[in-house]
């Protein structure tokens, strides 16, 4: 009896242990996947925050440009800065044969001429002087320097040819190569040149989209929640509405995009590719989230507070506005922020309403064409040039950072206003 009892006990203990191990295994697997994901993204993307530059001496030759200190901005804009830049380059590298000059020029970003022009526009006195400047290298150079494009392969398949590679090594040895923080990544819009492409336009686009979304869905969601929770009679109809709101939260987002395309663009004729339309479509998605969060928070307000207010002679509206809603606000705001964070990461509906256009300019309002963060990442991921790989990963990093910020804000809000009765 004692023997069988102890083996039974042993079996129970080991079963218990196995059961616990399944859980530990599942958690570790999930955690490992997340860590692997983050590691891949960060290791690919972190390099996008630095760009390779070369030091170049530029002689701002006013005679060549055909402008003087007194020239108007318009005249400066029309001057041939690309020619000036190339002339300087060719003069400094006079050992480079004429037919190779093209390859020399190709080592620099197209933005060099524009950067020089901006310098003259902001400061005319620079004309006639010679400046040592750091000029952005082209994406191909950048890729080789960062080791993201292979060096040790045959010339035909390499992003730089032997001649360019030789120049690069020479300049590196001369200390003319440097790297600096890639501020363009945050300020520029999209570009056909990877070294110039930035998230600025997408961040602004996402900002306007979320603003429209918030302005539409928050008041509507709160009003709907108050009505359903406090006023609506409990009958068949409200039950159906309730079930449908819960279902709405689970509808695939592309369907909302189709709805936006069919109704908002084609029927109401609102401008395509704009944050306004994007915000309207996304608000359809955040609305159920907000309604559900707000209703849950309203329900959680203790009835004693309601009764206390009513017994003081407060009308129903006063009871709701003075007592119930303020107590339900933290939960509602948390739900709203989480809804917006979801909307921030939403791609499919935005593709449907044309927010994947190639937009260089940063949108200044909700009525200008724009892209959004996830759509920009999608666009970059589709691009064939190698330079977009690190941009894609860096874009994902930015989305993750924004989401983490929004979610932690929601958590702080919840903790701060948490009340105990």
């Amino acid at each position: 009896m004692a023997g069988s009892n102890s083996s039974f006990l042993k079996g129970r203990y080991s079963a218990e242990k196995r059961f616990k191990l399944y859980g530990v295994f599942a958690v570790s697997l999930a955690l490992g996947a997340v860590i692997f994901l983050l590691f891949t993204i960060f290791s690919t993307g972190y390099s996008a925050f630095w760009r390779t530059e070369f030091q170049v001496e530029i002689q701002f030759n006013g005679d060549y440009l055909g402008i003087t200190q007194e020239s108007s901005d318009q005249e400066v804009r029309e001057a041939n800065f690309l020619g000036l830049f190339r002339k300087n380059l060719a003069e400094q590298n006079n050992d480079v044969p004429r037919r190779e000059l093209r390859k020399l020029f190709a080592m620099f970003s197209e933005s060099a001429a524009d950067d020089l022009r901006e310098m003259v526009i902001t400061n005319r006195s620079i004309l006639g002087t010679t400046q040592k400047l750091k000029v952005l290298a082209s994406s191909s150079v950048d890729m080789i320097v960062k080791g993201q494009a292979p060096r040790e392969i045959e010339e035909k398949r390499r992003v730089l040819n032997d001649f360019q590679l030789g120049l690069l090594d020479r300049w590196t040895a001369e200390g003319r190569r440097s790297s600096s923080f890639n501020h363009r990544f945050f300020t520029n819009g999209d570009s056909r040149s990877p070294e110039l492409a930035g998230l600025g336009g997408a961040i602004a686009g996402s900002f306007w989209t979320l603003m429209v979304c918030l302005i539409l869905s928050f008041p509507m969601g709160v009003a709907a929640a108050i009505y359903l929770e406090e006023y609506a009679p409990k009958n068949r109809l409200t039950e159906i509405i309730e079930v449908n709101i819960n279902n709405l939260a689970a509808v695939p987002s592309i369907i909302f995009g189709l709805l936006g395309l069919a109704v908002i663009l084609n029927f109401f004729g609102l401008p395509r590719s704009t944050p306004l339309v994007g915000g309207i479509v996304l608000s359809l998605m955040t609305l159920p989230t907000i309604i559900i969060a707000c209703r849950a928070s309203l329900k959680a307000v203790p009835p004693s507070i309601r009764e206390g207010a009513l017994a003081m002679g407060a009308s129903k509206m006063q009871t709701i506005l003075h007592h119930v809603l303020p107590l339900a606000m933290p939960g509602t705001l948390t739900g709203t922020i989480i809804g917006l964070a979801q909307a921030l990461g939403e791609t499919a509906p935005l593709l449907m309403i044309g927010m994947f256009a190639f937009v260089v300019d940063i949108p200044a309002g909700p009525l200008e064409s724009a892209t959004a963060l996830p759509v920009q990442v999608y666009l970059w991921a589709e691009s064939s040039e190698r330079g977009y790989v690190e941009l894609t990963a860096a874009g994902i990093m930015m989305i993750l950072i924004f989401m983490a910020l929004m979610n932690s804000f929601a958590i702080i809000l919840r903790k701060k206003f948490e009340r105990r009765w």
Partner: protein
Amino acid sequence: MDTKISAEGVNVFYGEAHALKNVSMQFMRNEVTALIGPSGCGKSTFLRCLNRMNDVIPDCRVEGKIMMGDVDINDSRLDVVRLREKVGMVFQKPNPFPKSIYDNVAYGPSIHGLARTQADMDRIVEESLQKAGLLEEVKDRLNQPGTGLSGGQQQRLCIARAIAVSPDVILMDEPCSALDPIATARIEELIEELRKNYTIIIVTHSMQQAARVSQQTAFFHLGDLVEVGKTDDLFVKPQQQKTQDYITGRFG
């Protein structure tokens, strides 16, 4: 001694359930009336008829006449906001608003427009806290949350909140059931004090409390008003066997 509220043939239904059966009784001005009886006997239901708090319960139907002066409280056309200004209520569990002590007391006067100036409001708040016997304890921290007070203090804050709108009647639904004996004693003293200015109706589970604080007692059982009479008489020589059983603790 005149009648403040007079209930005639009050019936309450929760859906199909008949919760209160044909209750008629009078409440005297400046008296404390205690409603006693076992749980579920309808005493709280009856109390909530007097300021129409049953309105918020779906499926609840109240029949009969409840006259306060020449107004029928149970008239569906009556404005409940006006009524509740005249009939205040204190609940079983202290339920101060999660606001400052000052704002708790000032809430009633502000929604009913009773204070024209800030000074008026300060005076009302101070007087109400004084009457509720709380002023001395909280006068230095009027801006702190009412929920930070002790249970007994919270309940006195709720009483101060109720009397801030100068009601005629104060309803108390087991006001001491969540309090310790010392806090209970303070509330009971306060009830005796408040009786001078208000008509008080109190639901209580404690027969000792009913005997201590009330002048009139009504005994309810299963929705029936079994017996109502002067407290001194009812506890000493009850007319009904059921009352006798209940007050002697022989009730099953």
